[in-house]
């Protein structure tokens, strides 16, 4: 076994938390049952790793075996990367071909190898017609760097691919090209949507979170719907307040729905809009140029936080469409200009 391969496998296994180790090794399916049974997983981690490397050597692990282990690790630790979304499109009048996974993989690999000579490409298919792709980048003259790979998750029945955005930027066009050509598309475009939570990105891109919303009957009278109001509400709140609170709750629910929101960590708005104040008409009145602002919302769970703003009285209901459109428009990066 190559020394670099051994080192790479060792470092990958060291990253794996002990409580996940057997699960991941089983998913890897490289070491046999018999081999795994010889390992005492209750030892100190370094000893376990030593033993595992020894077993890998016995089986002559190659770089592609190592790459596969790395993919599995990343599948278990998706949130360690920030994921971006690419959308592909077919040319006008092009037919929707039947997708052939084998042909896609061959084509994808060939395109990269032809361009770079030194590149490690690995695939792992999952249910939901998705394929995880791992690319370790090299150049014409240097070997691939196994420690800075790019991961791509391509849903073959859709025009969408999710990529880990830690890649070296110069390879982006090539990656885009490979994806587009191999999947028989015409064009690829990066969406303004980014998050650590791959599942949330999927939910937003594929509009999966909307499914429960469809079954909601919006003509149901107010009393029958759960408004989330505290039943033991303070009796000092007088009637008008209750009406307003109910209005806010209803609008919030209509906007965000009853279901848990997809998890995003931030939304960013680049604004170039003129200042228009209701307070004092003379401020910046003669100024033609817009104010250049950059606004960033950050939260462990942005959409849930935004949902709570109007009921808390911090925002008006309905909330601004700039915020509520995030899941619908499938964007969390915006450039806003005066019309």
């Amino acid at each position: 076994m190559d020394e670099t391969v051994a080192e790479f496998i060792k470092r990958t296994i060291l990253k794996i938390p002990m409580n996940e180790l057997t699960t991941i090794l089983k998913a890897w399916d490289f070491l046999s049952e018999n081999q795994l049974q010889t390992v005492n997983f209750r030892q100190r981690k370094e000893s376990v790793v030593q033993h595992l490397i020894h077993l890998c050597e016995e089986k002559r692990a190659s770089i592609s075996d190592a790459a596969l282990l790395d993919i599995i690790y990343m599948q278990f630790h998706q949130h360690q990367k920030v994921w971006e979304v690419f959308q592909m499109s077919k040319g006008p009048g092009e037919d929707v071909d039947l997708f052939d996974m084998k042909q896609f993989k061959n084509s994808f690999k060939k395109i990269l190898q032809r361009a770079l000579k030194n590149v490690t490409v690995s695939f792992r298919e999952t249910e939901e017609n998705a394929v995880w792709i791992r690319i370790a980048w090299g150049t014409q003259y240097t070997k691939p760097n196994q420690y800075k790979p790019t991961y791509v998750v391509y849903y073959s029945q859709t025009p969408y691919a999710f990529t880990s955005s830690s890649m070296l930027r110069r390879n982006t066009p090539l990656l885009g090209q490979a994806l587009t050509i191999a999947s028989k598309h015409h064009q690829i475009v990066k969406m303004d949507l980014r998050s650590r939570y791959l599942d949330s990105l999927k939910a937003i891109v594929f509009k999966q979170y909307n499914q429960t919303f469809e079954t909601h009957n919006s003509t149901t009278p107010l009393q029958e719907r759960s408004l989330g109001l505290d039943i033991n509400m303070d009796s000092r709140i007088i009637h008008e307040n209750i009406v307003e609170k109910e209005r806010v709750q209803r609008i919030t629910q209509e906007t965000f729905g009853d279901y848990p929101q997809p998890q995003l960590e931030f939304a960013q708005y680049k604004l170039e809009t003129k200042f228009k104040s209701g307070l004092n008409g003379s401020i910046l009145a003669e100024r033609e140029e817009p104010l250049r602002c950059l606004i960033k919302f950050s939260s462990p769970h942005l959409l849930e936080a935004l949902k709570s703003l109007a009921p808390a009285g911090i925002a008006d209901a309905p909330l601004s469409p700039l915020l509520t459109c995030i899941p619908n428009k499938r964007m969390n990066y915006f450039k806003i200009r005066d019309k």
Partner: protein
Amino acid sequence: MDSYSAPESTPSASSRPEDYFIGATPLQKRLESVRKQSSFILTPPRRKIPQCSQLQEDVDPQKVAFLLHKQWTLYSLTPLYKFSYSNLKEYSRLLNAFIVAEKQKGLAVEVGEDFNIKIVSKSQLPSENREGKVLWTGWFCCVFGDSLLETVSEDFTCLPLFLANGAESNTAIIGTWFQKTFDCYFSPLAINAFNLSWMAAMWTACKMDHYVATTEFLWSVPCSPQSLDISFAIHPEDAKALWDSVHKTPGEVTQEEVDLFMDCLYSHFHRHFKIHLSATRLVRVSTSVASAHTDGKIKILCHKYLIGVLAYLTELAIFQIE
């Protein structure tokens, strides 16, 4: 009575910044004149904008370079009892011994000759061939702190503002020694939203040749269960244009102007997002002059307005002591 007028003496003989940190003789002279004045309102509704021309020639950029671009943690400090500038060597020896006793790792301490006591802490661990790296810096400061000076007797030295950069543990040990030796009391200086707004307005008002940083505000939104932070960055030229449009009284900043400036920002934000920033908590402001965080952290970026920044911070420190 607005006593923030520029020092009437172009500093007598000396252009050392130390005189502005801890005024020795010039300040005592002013103490006399201040005692004759009528009572002083601590947070006046108007204050002079730090004028570049008054202060620039007095501050040697090279000498103050070590103060810039570093994050300082702020404390207020009650007056020091029987502190004497002539005993600095003795103090350094005592502080040294104290630190050695407290921390058995053998930190050596040196004290500079300057009025502002600079404690240079070197580790005596094996890497002695390296040049000593400054691990911790602390300095005492009083800029225009007249209101405090007039109330204390001559046994006391007033250095109400203390800034520290470096490990928290070092700050604690050194602070303990000073508290024991001079019967004073350190207290972390928090900066509330009101004062952060003032800082943002004053620093935006400063005339700059070029901007090194964007003007930025950070609010923390009290929503549950998830926290939400909102950052609002505005191009510094646009911020200045907004300020100039709001600003009416030349040479001074008034409460109304600060409120209006902030309201304009709130209003611009509300127009787009329908969120009332005024219902949230301002925690950080950042400009090309300086940046400040509500936890009492400050970073000064521009030597031209150093004195102005310190003057405001001194005022906050005094306010906290009283």
